[in-house]
């Protein structure tokens, strides 16, 4: 974990509301593990004080990039920032994905929208190539398909409106694949919570292990404020664990989806 001022190298529109930002982060970049995130302070926000968490998308030398969607105050300010401008970044943060061992299960990656960002480094660093299931509402929500193909991965696309790939929720092609062959598979997923919940159910049903990157609201990002907690099973009982520290990646079997009373 390092705090440093990073300089924006590029910040360009990817598609629709998605942008790619590359920042020079000499200390942070080399440390990043797949599924970890950077906590960015976007200074033009002014009266909005908190940092914003973003998965580290790609790492190249002393730079790292994020792939983000404009959804509110911070991301819209971020999208207007220009190369040369600076951000304060804390990272890499959190407990990421378990990179498959050589000869281990075939990884099945499941991404919804910007969830792709959390999975690229995993695909890149995994000794086994596997299948990436990419889902979204519309064609524009299907991100960096080419990049995953360039890594030699089999990319399967589904959109809710059928504008690209299969017209289905991404859990459909995943289910089909597992129905076809469930042996020696491991699932890694990142996306909206409803999608993760469905993936957990499917993994459970086909009894394959699954690691999920949970999208919880954060404040400090480093484990002190206890904002980002979710209920996690601990031998028999349950406790609130921190998505920024014990997570964002959790074993799907550990997660308690219905918050107990």
């Amino acid at each position, binding site marked *: 974990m390092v705090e440093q001022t990073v300089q924006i190298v590029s910040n360009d529109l990817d598609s629709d509301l998605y942008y790619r930002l590359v920042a020079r982060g000499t200390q942070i970049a080399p440390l990043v593990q797949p599924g970890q995130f950077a906590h960015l302070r976007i200074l033009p926000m002014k009266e909005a004080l*908190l940092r914003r968490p973003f998965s580290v998308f790609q790492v190249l030398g002393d730079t790292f990039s994020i792939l983000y969607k404009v959804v509110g105050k911070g991301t819209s300010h971020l999208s207007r920032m220009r190369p040369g401008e600076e951000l*304060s970044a804390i990272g890499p943060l959190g407990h990421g994905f378990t990179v498959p061992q050589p000869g281990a299960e075939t990884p099945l990656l499941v991404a919804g929208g910007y969830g792709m960002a959390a999975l690229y480094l995993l695909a890149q660093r995994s000794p086994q190539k596997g299948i990436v299931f990419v889902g979204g509402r519309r064609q524009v929500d299907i991100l960096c398909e080419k990049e995953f193909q360039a890594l030699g991965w089999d990319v399967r696309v589904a959109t809710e409106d059928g504008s690209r790939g299969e017209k289905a929720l991404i859990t459909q092609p995943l289910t089909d694949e597992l129905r076809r062959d469930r042996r020696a598979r491991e699932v890694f997923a990142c996306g909206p919570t409803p999608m993760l919940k469905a993936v957990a159910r499917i993994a459970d049903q086909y009894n394959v292990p699954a690691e999920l990157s949970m999208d919880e*609201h954060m404040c400090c990002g480093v484990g*002190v404020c206890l*904002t980002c*907690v979710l209920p996690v099973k601990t031998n028999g009982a349950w406790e609130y664990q921190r998505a920024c520290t014990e997570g964002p990646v959790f074993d799907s079997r550990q997660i308690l989806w219905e918050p107990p009373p």
Partner: protein
Amino acid sequence: MGASAVNLSVQLGKLKLQNPVMVASGTFGYGAEYSGLVDLNQLGAVVVKGIRLGPVRGNPTPRTVEVSSGLINAIGLQGPGVDGFIEKYWPFLKTLQVPTIINIWGTTVEEYSEAARRFDALGGVGALELNVSCPNIKKGGAQFGTDLQLLAQVVSACRKATALPLITKMSPNVVSVGPFARVAEESGSDALSIMNSYPAMAIDIETRRPRLGNVTGGLTGPCIKPIAIKLVWEAAKAVKIPIIGMGGIQNASDAIEFMIAGATAVAVGTANFYEPQTAVQVIAGIAEYLKRHEIDDIAELTGTVQIGSD
């Protein structure tokens, strides 16, 4: 005038701090979390997250929400309890060269005093801070801080239970803080912390649901600074014991404003979440200010606000 010439150290009862800048309870975890980013030994003191006798699960999520120049939180004092704290976090904290101040709370007077007794027995604790002002728990917490009798009972009971310096953390949610400050002093407090968060609420207009799982929470950050400055100024007129000022401190100027209003020490809270270096930067900034104004002892700053045409 050399840096060495400026005296930054302050006294809170028996407790001496190398400088007046600490980190506020609940905004710095148990110290260890930030040890990779912040040199803890530069701080005046580390104040840990509020601890109850037994473990506490805390409130449902969402637990914080960002508002204009501030934050509303309703964590619900999640914590490991006294034993869990001593096992998990104390081993690291006791290695620090700066004092650890332990923030405790309970739902009964006995719970407070028992926790005080436990930490007194632990040894090596710098001071105890009694949180009688947390707005985010159903029983206890704030109600002690807004009722003069209960306040007197809880502080006296803890005073009997320990010889450690006792800091009472005041609720801002009273008509006038003076009487509460006096009761806390008369009941045996060595210092006062002012202020805790202010009761607040936010609603999502699309879902029409509260933005916090606990419905209401406590407002903190720069937005409450003008309220905190007034409370510190009023309390300082009411009591002789030192005051730890907090509420929206983001930089040295904010900290100095609290001290001029009457604070002997200050604490950085919400700012840690967006700028972990804040406390360290505040210490440097205070030293710089003192030099520029040729003040060689920080004590000469406390309570020097000039009222009227003098």
